């Protein structure tokens, strides 16, 4: 394998019902930076049926080139058909880097493609960079349950591939004046040769987030005082779209079911934002949440150990602070027409 034959940064553009997934746009933003550093074009590749109209959007979000394969058999994602399409493109155009969103379909596709290309694939990346001199993708990801980061390299194989967690990278602001090239490729696929059939797709966005998977958690402790006051925790969580957690004391007092307990004997959580409200920070609680990315602690006791792990601490009465927070968020929401977007 001559590594120099491989040039360019590619992003898998995942679409459902002709709507591009957010993570694909985020990856165009991240890919743009890598491509600029390596001084190569950034390409998006788009597979599906009747998807060509989406190509311009891909360009407006940062791509120089969009490869499109349009085929009826590609109407719904299936590993076998999509993989064939990606293999065709990758073998013909030889990109040096391919990024996929770490979604069910993105991960599925990347794993299959990596096997057939006999190349390296890094899963669930949260940091991307390149070693320009060696043209190496530096894909970093949390390892061992999120306690530390590992940077994975693929030195001798191309393309270098990674799946990237949604909501980690930033999309560029779309620029509809951007220019790019759209390249269409033909593929030979026959429905009767497909070994799987998609019979039905059911969208269900109402499903409640599992605590261990939650992005944002509002966790309350015994410091909330009583069951009545604890409802403020629920209210704050609802306002910002977070999941609710509680300490062991809270669960033992019956204010929350056991599934919502955070700590050594409950769930270990690693959300992006963790509100610890009325929680002193006993060890058995802290071990279950200390790896959260951003911890906000609200507690009356200035010596509470929770402040040692908190990114930001407020010494104060939760009964006073939390209603004010809720009010602020609600205000933001009404200004922005129902969505909390801070932009």
């Amino acid at each position, binding site marked *: 394998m001559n590594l120099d034959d491989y040039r360019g940064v590619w992003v898998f553009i995942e679409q459902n019902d002709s709507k591009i997934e957010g993570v694909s746009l985020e990856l165009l933003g991240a890919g743009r930076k890598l491509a600029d550093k390596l001084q190569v074009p950034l390409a998006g590749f788009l597979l599906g049926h009747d998807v060509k109209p989406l190509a311009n959007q891909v360009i407006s979000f940062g791509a120089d080139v969009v490869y499109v394969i349009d085929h009826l058999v590609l109407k719904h994602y299936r590993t076998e058909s999509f993989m064939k399409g990606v293999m065709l493109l990758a073998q013909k155009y030889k990109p040096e880097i391919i990024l996929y969103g770490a979604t069910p379909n993105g991960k599925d596709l990347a794993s299959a493609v990596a096997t057939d290309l006999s190349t390296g694939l890094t899963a669930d990346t949260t940091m991307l960079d390149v070693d320009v001199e060696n043209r190496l993708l530096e894909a970093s990801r949390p390892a061992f349950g999120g306690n530390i980061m590992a940077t994975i390299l693929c030195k001798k194989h191309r393309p270098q591939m990674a799946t990237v967690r949604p909501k980690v990278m930033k999309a560029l602001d779309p620029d509809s004046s951007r220019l790019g090239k759209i390249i269409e490729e033909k593929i030979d696929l026959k429905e009767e040769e497909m070994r799987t059939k998609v019979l039905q797709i059911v969208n269900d966005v109402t499903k409640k987030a599992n605590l261990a998977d939650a992005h944002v958690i509002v966790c309350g402790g015994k410091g909330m005082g009583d069951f009545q006051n604890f409802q403020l925790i629920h209210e704050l969580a609802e306002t910002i779209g977070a999941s609710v957690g509680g300490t062991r004391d809270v669960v033992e007092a019956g204010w929350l079911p056991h599934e919502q307990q955070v700590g*050594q004997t409950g769930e270990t959580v690693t959300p992006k934002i963790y509100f610890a409200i009325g929680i002193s920070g*006993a*060890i*058995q609680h*802290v*071990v279950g949440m200390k790896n959260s990315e951003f911890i906000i602690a609200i507690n009356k006791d200035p010596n509470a*150990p929770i402040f040692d792990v908190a990114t930001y601490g407020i010494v104060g009465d939760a009964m006073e602070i939390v209603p004010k927070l809720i009010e602020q968020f609600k205000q933001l929401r009404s200004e922005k027409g129902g969505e909390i977007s801070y932009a």
Partner: protein
Amino acid sequence: MPEKFDVIIVGAGPAGTSCALTCAKNGLNVLLIERGEYPGAKNVMGGVLYRKQMEELIPEFWKEAPLERPVIEQRFWMMDKESVVQFGYKGLEWAVEPYNNFTVLRAQFDQWFANKAVEAGALLINETVVTECIVENGKVVGVRTDRPDGEIFADVVVLADGVNSLLSKQLGFHKEFRPDEVALTVMEVINLPKEKINDRFNLEDNQGCTIEIFGDSTKGNLGTAFLYTNKDSLNIGVGTTLSSMIKAKLKPYELLDYLKNHPMVKPMLAGGESAEYLAHLIPEGGYRSVPKVAGNGVIVVGDAAQLVNAIHREGSNMAMHSGLLAAESILEAKSRGDFSEASLNIYREKLFDSFIIKDLEKYKDAAHTFEKYPQYFNDYVPMMNKAMSKFFTVDGTPKREKQKQIMKNVTAEKGTLKVLQDIYRAWKAVK
């Protein structure tokens, strides 16, 4: 038809495992049932393993067992609010084979130990709770577990199910413990780099130290605290009787937080990271609480039989030794083909002949004495600290004069007669 074993052992702690190991080594068909995910998962030990009893079971175990450090120094602290009186012994003879004691992490050690029993031929089943003994015609013939099709049978059932042995209660061997018979020990493992531990405790790599703390460690409650050195972590813990905990309305972790923040202790822990937090009941009743230990087709070992010396904090060694004695008794019973209470009661005799019961008897009044007369911890420890402070403070007073003053202070605070009484009572309790 459910299987029948020679022996079913309930609980894969030190007592159960040593019994299983000895039985299996001698060709018995052994089933060892553990409720935790793996042996050691539910165990908390101060972290000291005694060489002697372990060596009887596995010669030269230190060559392969997952041990932390050989203990070469034992310190005792009489701690007041801002001071401590220390004494202890450090000897390099303990730093070489065959060693004296070791610090261990139970989660690893128990697993290793149970594996030894498995290698010897015992069957180990984890994550299974024995709900009751199956009794037929006044004889224990097997156990019922919480699993589907969960009945299993055996000639002898060994109860090694820990301090709150529901099974021996079911059999009426003992009643519910009184809160003053059970201590609650709360402990934490704190990760700290090896070099820091060596520096702070004045140790080499393969040397360990144990500190037993009396006095202010338990916020004036009856009990003791400890600080042990592992390879690259510390075990810190505090234990007090359940009754004094209830009386003082204390939560276990509050006690531990208090100890960790004590000015004498805090610097030892500085920069460490909490890795594990555990709370556990330890029988502290001593001699007076030893229940019936054998019945028709059943034997009780270890904590379940209340075999713990509260004063010297020896539980695991007594547990192991009782397991061994139980195994010997079962083997003898097997050769007689008689598993009745009369036949198995040889175990009780063995226990009473061993160091276990002798030690328990020796200290039988200690816990009660200290519980009844809290002045030992509440008054004398601070007094001792004041005395030492006075004695060592250089202020121009001649030493002889200082001694006189100290004695005067002591008797003024307590009254001469009272002091003498207390000394006599304490001496009687532990002599």
